[in-house]
């Protein structure tokens, strides 16, 4: 059995290994006709610099299918996609997740050299978007998409693109606010200089008044525009009867503005406008830092994002592409290889070999016969299928599964669990209490103005700017560090939840194992082609996963008649083929002694007649580092659980990988997995679920933190809290370490912030808080916190990365 190729040849265009005989063209090897075609097009148009910026930058184009984009000729579809249209020129934005390097940018921005109909194209690499202006008399929208697909950059057009075209324009208000607050902060400080150095009395007393008024006018936009969000958030939080961090902040800003205004207009003092502007500026910076998460990753995609926009339908002997929403019961739809079945349908004709890994997690495709019902969500692996729709898209099994109420994750609860908000809840009460006590103390001594002074000063100096920014800067920085390690989180609140995790639950298929087809190798005496046909014919009778794997492996051999077939569950199968008894199964079943087998691989023995011919080893392609990861999790005291839809056949290999303490549960349906997570949670555990695919969606949502492992982070992300690139799978324990460390860093920065607050309060309660002290303390504490949190979180990430 030929399993290895002698020389590895990589495609000049896409860099993939050429599996079959490489195509040669212009002294270069190509893995497929598609790659060669792209090269030819680029060469004809003098665009070969594409290959110069990066080596082998190309993408193998999808097999071109005529009429796949026919729906783009539909005027209503076009209207939704095109952003601008004046009859002659049209502008359209496409999302092209396949662009990955500078060569991609270069080629996409030089499209006009391939087709003159393209007027201008501009790439936004971070958003994986291209903005195209094209001449409609030379190029239709469909032709434009076909052009992109032909060179390998097929734009992703999803159903929801068509649903809400009115995408929110990029919101610049945060930038404006930061700019204005920073502008005001700098200028107010300059105009406060005479005050800081007590120059005003020595020189011209006229400055004092003028500068104060300038400060007042500069602070107006800060108070009314820049800090508006703190007030709305504070009001909302008071309405919800939970005082978040914005309450003391809003209180502080308000008191500062009112008192400063009073002082300026009564001529009693310079006010605290500089402190206020600085505070708003730093806090807006913190918010901005915190909001800079990975906007290009969408965590809230639903099933619609994975369905195609259109489907080919046969009507009156003609084939046409119709939008999915127009698919009706009774329609004959045509599904090609690698397409997802969008609605439950009955197979009319075709060689159906359906991969349901998207729905069930079972990686082996199943063969379906004509007349069988095919559920939506399966991906066809064979040829063209024709089927009749029995349920509309919105009624299908997959859609029902998705819309199940249990699967809707509650996201808003995260805010109240945040450490900073729990602390600020009490913080506010303490601050107000201190301020009131100071007021009454001085009032009792008869010095009411001083009491008033102390009261406002406490509220001003206690304004928890440092407290408020410690969390976003720590978590924002950790988020960025994770991002560099190809781990992307929905938001910063997830990190705090990660820190509390004590139980790690894994899905098996696709998470611990790789999604690629399992490697099968044979050892034993050489088998004739005839004998291979005999084995294949026998295993084709069985529905056991291992039989299916063997059958797929031996594809291409002849099908022979089988008589007397018998299946012994848990042992093997036997039957007569061409008058020879063929037995396939465990070592005991075929009486095989003397054959070595290791613990990790699943082994199937084959006996022809009375002779044991050899064995097929089916390697479980577990991800690299699973064993080390399990070891580290165990030593750190995490409880490890594996929930799998598979049978217990691989228990021994799983045990050897994960250790004896690991809890293994087999034959778990998506519902069972969800129930298992609930069971752990009811027992008081904080559960981290690591899974993939839609079949885990329920469990991912139910768990405290749900992480989806994906080979292509742009490709598939069911509703989860984070996406982990499969290449970084083994660094999961380092990620948990870093999350735990971040919690300690935040607590540490809270302590620092509180020390600054105490110092300020010391002056404040005595009524001796001068604007200079406030103006020094506020930026000083802020800078301390920012450097402490970013420095410590980088250190923590560095340490846990090195501990691997």
């Amino acid at each position, binding site marked *: 059995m030929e399993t290895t190729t002698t020389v590895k040849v990589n495609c000049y265009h896409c860099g993939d290994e050429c599996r079959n005989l490489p195509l040669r063209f212009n002294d270069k090897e190509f893995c497929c006709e598609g790659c060669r075609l792209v090269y030819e097009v680029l*060469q004809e148009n*003098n665009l070969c610099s594409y*290959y*110069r910026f990066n080596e082998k930058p190309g993408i193998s184009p999808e097999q071109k299918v005529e009429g796949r984009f026919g729906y783009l000729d539909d005027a209503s579809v076009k209207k939704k996609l095109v952003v601008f249209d004046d009859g002659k020129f049209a502008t359209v934005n496409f999302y092209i997740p396949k662009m990955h390097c500078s060569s991609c*940018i*270069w080629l996409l*921005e030089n499209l006009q050299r391939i087709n003159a109909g393209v007027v201008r194209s501009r790439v936004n690499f971070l*958003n994986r978007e291209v903005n195209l202006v094209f001449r409609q008399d030379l190029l239709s929208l469909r032709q434009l998409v076909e052009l992109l697909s032909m060179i390998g950059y097929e734009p992703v057009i999803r159903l929801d693109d068509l649903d809400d075209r009115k995408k929110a324009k*990029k919101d610049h208000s945060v930038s*404006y606010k930061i700019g204005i607050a920073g502008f005001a902060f700098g200028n107010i400080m300059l105009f406060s200089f005479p005050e800081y150095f007590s120059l005003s009395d020595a020189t011209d007393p006229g400055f004092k008044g003028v500068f104060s008024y300038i400060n007042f006018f500069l602070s107006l936009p800060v108070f009314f525009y820049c800090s508006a969000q703190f007030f709305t958030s504070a009001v909302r939080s008071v309405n919800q009867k939970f005082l978040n961090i914005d309450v003391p902040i809003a209180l502080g800003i308000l008191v500062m503005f009112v008192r400063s205004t009073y002082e300026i207009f009564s001529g009693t003092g310079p006010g605290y406008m500089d402190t206020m502007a600085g505070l708003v500026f730093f806090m807006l910076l913190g918010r901005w830092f915190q909001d800079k998460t990975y906007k290009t990753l969408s965590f809230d995609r639903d099933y619609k994002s994975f369905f195609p926009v259109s489907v080919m339908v046969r009507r009156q002997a003609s084939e046409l592409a119709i939008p999915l929403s127009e698919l009706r019961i009774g329609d004959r739809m045509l599904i090609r290889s690698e397409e997802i079945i969008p609605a439950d349908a009955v197979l009319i004709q075709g060689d159906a070999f359906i991969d349901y890994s998207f729905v069930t997690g079972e990686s082996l495709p199943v063969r379906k016969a004509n007349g069988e019902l095919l559920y939506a969500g399966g991906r066809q692996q064979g040829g063209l299928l024709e089927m009749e729709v029995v349920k509309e898209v919105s009624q299908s099994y997959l859609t029902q599964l998705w819309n199940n109420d249990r699967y809707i994750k509650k996201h808003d609860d995260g805010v109240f669990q945040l450490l900073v908000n729990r602390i600020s809840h009490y913080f506010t009460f303490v601050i107000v209490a201190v301020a009131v006590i100071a007021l009454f103390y001085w009032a009792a001594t008869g010095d009411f103005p001083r009491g008033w002074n102390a009261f406002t000063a406490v509220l001003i100096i206690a304004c928890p700017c440092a407290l408020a920014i410690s969390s976003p800067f720590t978590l924002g920085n950790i988020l960025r560090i994770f991002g560099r390690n190809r781990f992307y989180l929905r938001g910063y609140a997830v990190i705090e939840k990660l820190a509390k995790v004590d139980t790690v639950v894994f899905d098996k298929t696709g998470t611990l194992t790789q999604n690629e087809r399992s490697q099968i190798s044979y050892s034993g005496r050489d088998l004739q082609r005839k004998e291979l046909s005999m084995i294949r014919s026998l295993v084709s009778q069985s529905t056991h996963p291992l039989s299916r794997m063997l059958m797929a492996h031996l594809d291409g051999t002849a099908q022979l008649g089988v008589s007397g077939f018998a299946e012994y569950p848990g042992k093997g199968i036997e039957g007569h083929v061409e008058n020879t008894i063929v037995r396939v199964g465990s070592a005991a079943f075929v009486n095989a002694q003397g054959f070595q087998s290791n613990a990790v691989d699943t082994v199937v023995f084959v006996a022809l007649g009375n002779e044991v011919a050899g064995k097929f080893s089916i390697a479980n392609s577990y991800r690299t580092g699973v064993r080390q990861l399990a070891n580290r999790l165990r030593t750190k005291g995490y409880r490890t659980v594996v929930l799998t839809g598979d049978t217990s056949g691989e228990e021994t290999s799983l045990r050897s990988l994960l250790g004896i303490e690991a809890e293994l549960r087999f034959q778990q349906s998506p519902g069972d997995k969800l129930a298992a997570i609930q069971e752990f949670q009811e027992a008081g555990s904080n559960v981290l679920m690591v899974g993939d695919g839609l079949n885990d969606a329920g469990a991912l949502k139910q768990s405290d933190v749900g992480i989806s492992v994906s080979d292509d982070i742009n490709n598939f992300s069911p509703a989860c809290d984070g996406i982990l690139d499969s290449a970084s799978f083994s660094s999961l324990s380092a990620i948990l370490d870093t999350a735990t460390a971040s919690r300690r860093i935040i607590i540490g920065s809270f302590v620092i912030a509180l020390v600054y607050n105490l110092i300020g309060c010391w002056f404040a309660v005595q009524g001796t808080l001068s604007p200079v002290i406030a103006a020094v303390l506020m930026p000083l504490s802020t800078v301390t916190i920012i450097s402490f949190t970013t420095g410590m979180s980088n250190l923590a990430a560095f340490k846990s990365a090195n501990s691997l």
Partner: protein
Amino acid sequence: MSVIFLLILFSLLLAFVFLYAFIWSVRDGQYDDEYTPSVRILFDDEATQQEPASSGQDLNQSNS
């Protein structure tokens, strides 16, 4: 010393000009994409005409 009021007026005016410039640049979308322009600027306009010798690998022979 009253000349200082005039200077302050000018300095504030200048500061407002810069604030306006900032707001204009944000509105113009200069901060929307912070990565692509840095790559774009390195592309030659006539990249295919010249053949700058790239290190070792001759990837341009296809142009001949």
